[in-house]
């Protein structure tokens, strides 16, 4: 199970500190959703016994600039995320096969509907369930966040779109262990198994992209054999 975090300078804790805490909490890995952050991934690899995934979160106001950023970052990072929050960017993200995850689709003005859910399923773009507001806000804001999560869940369920789950922590103090997230999920109407699957999906997407990025990869199911570069 993986957690996708905002690392320093996007958040208050460095990627290393997240890795240290996540290892203690029982996560298998941490996805660094970098906006400005640029940790030294070589140093982090294996340092605390958890996997650290090099991801980038594209924050853009309109599809045109998002498209440029996605094209630019795709070859450089293992995971490309697009932060939603407006209808146009949400729509752009789910219609792009190059995008791995649409994050925080219900933030701000953003909304989701059957058209987007179907597009997400067709293009294999995972939709994020953001547990952050459930864990860290209260009152009306939290009620709206819960309503949004429910709407999103019903759509994602119906169209069988891929999804990920995250507590969107911006410091290591905002991390919560997988069992806690499952318990929260169950209280707000999710299946504990679905929450676990959502946490695991981060790792699955990362593994898949790493394989694609490796030198021996030619096309799905075709790879160069290691010793002499002959085709198997």
């Amino acid at each position, binding site marked *: 199970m993986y957690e996708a975090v905002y690392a320093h300078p996007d958040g208050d804790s460095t990627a*290393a500190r*997240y890795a240290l805490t996540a290892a203690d909490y029982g996560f298998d890995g941490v996805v660094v959703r970098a906006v400005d952050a640029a940790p030294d991934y070589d140093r982090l690899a294996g340092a605390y016994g958890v996997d650290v995934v090099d991801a980038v979160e594209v924050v853009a106001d309109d599809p045109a600039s998002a498209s440029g950023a996605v094209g630019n970052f795709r070859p450089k990072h293992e995971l490309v995320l697009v932060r939603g929050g407006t209808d146009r960017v949400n729509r752009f993200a789910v219609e792009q096969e190059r995008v791995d995850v649409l994050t925080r689709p219900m933030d701000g003005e953003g909304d989701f509907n059957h058209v987007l859910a179907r597009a997400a399923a067709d293009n294999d773009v995972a939709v994020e369930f953001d547990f952050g507001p459930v864990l860290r806000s209260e009152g009306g804001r939290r009620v709206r966040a819960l309503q949004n999560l429910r709407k999103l869940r019903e759509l994602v369920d119906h169209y069988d779109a891929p999804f990920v789950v995250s507590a969107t922590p911006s410091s290591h103090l905002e991390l919560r262990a997988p069992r806690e997230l499952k318990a929260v999920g169950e209280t707000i109407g999710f299946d504990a198994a679905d929450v676990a699957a959502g946490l695991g999906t981060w790792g699955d997407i990362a593994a898949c992209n790493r394989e694609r990025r490796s030198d021996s990869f030619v096309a799905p199911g075709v790879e160069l054999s290691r010793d002499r570069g002959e085709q198997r």
Partner: protein
Amino acid sequence: MKHLPKHLRPRWRYLAVGIEAWPDAEISRGSFQRELWYAAQNLLGDPGSADASLSVLRFEFENGSGETVVRVRRGEVEPARAALACLDEVDGQPVGLRVRGVSGTVRAASERYLGRGAGVSDQRSVVFENTERTAFERDSALDVRRPSGFAGATELDLE
């Protein structure tokens, strides 16, 4: 009033909880208990939080780290876990919480899961964000004091 016969007394489970905060945080048992009740009430509602009947028994907190034992009615452990996860700050100070384990007695909970020691908190000066700053060290974790608040780091972040 005469106390209940043994077979009619409620059964309890005890959650061993680890607490983490920034090094300047001051958290008392009373304020932790209050925030936990709020968190439970907000998430589970009045009936749910009455069912869970959460109470904080042992509580220790010093230098930004601590541990506590929370009592909950048997069969309500998962809702209690969810309520604990939603406890994000005490008196405006952010806290990280983790349920380390669940036991049937206070003694088993604290012997098996607690008492790892807060670790000695040491102060030293480090270079972070290209500036010299004071850091509080606990095991390999470093909390660096910045004008805008603390930053979480580790040994790996220092050159």
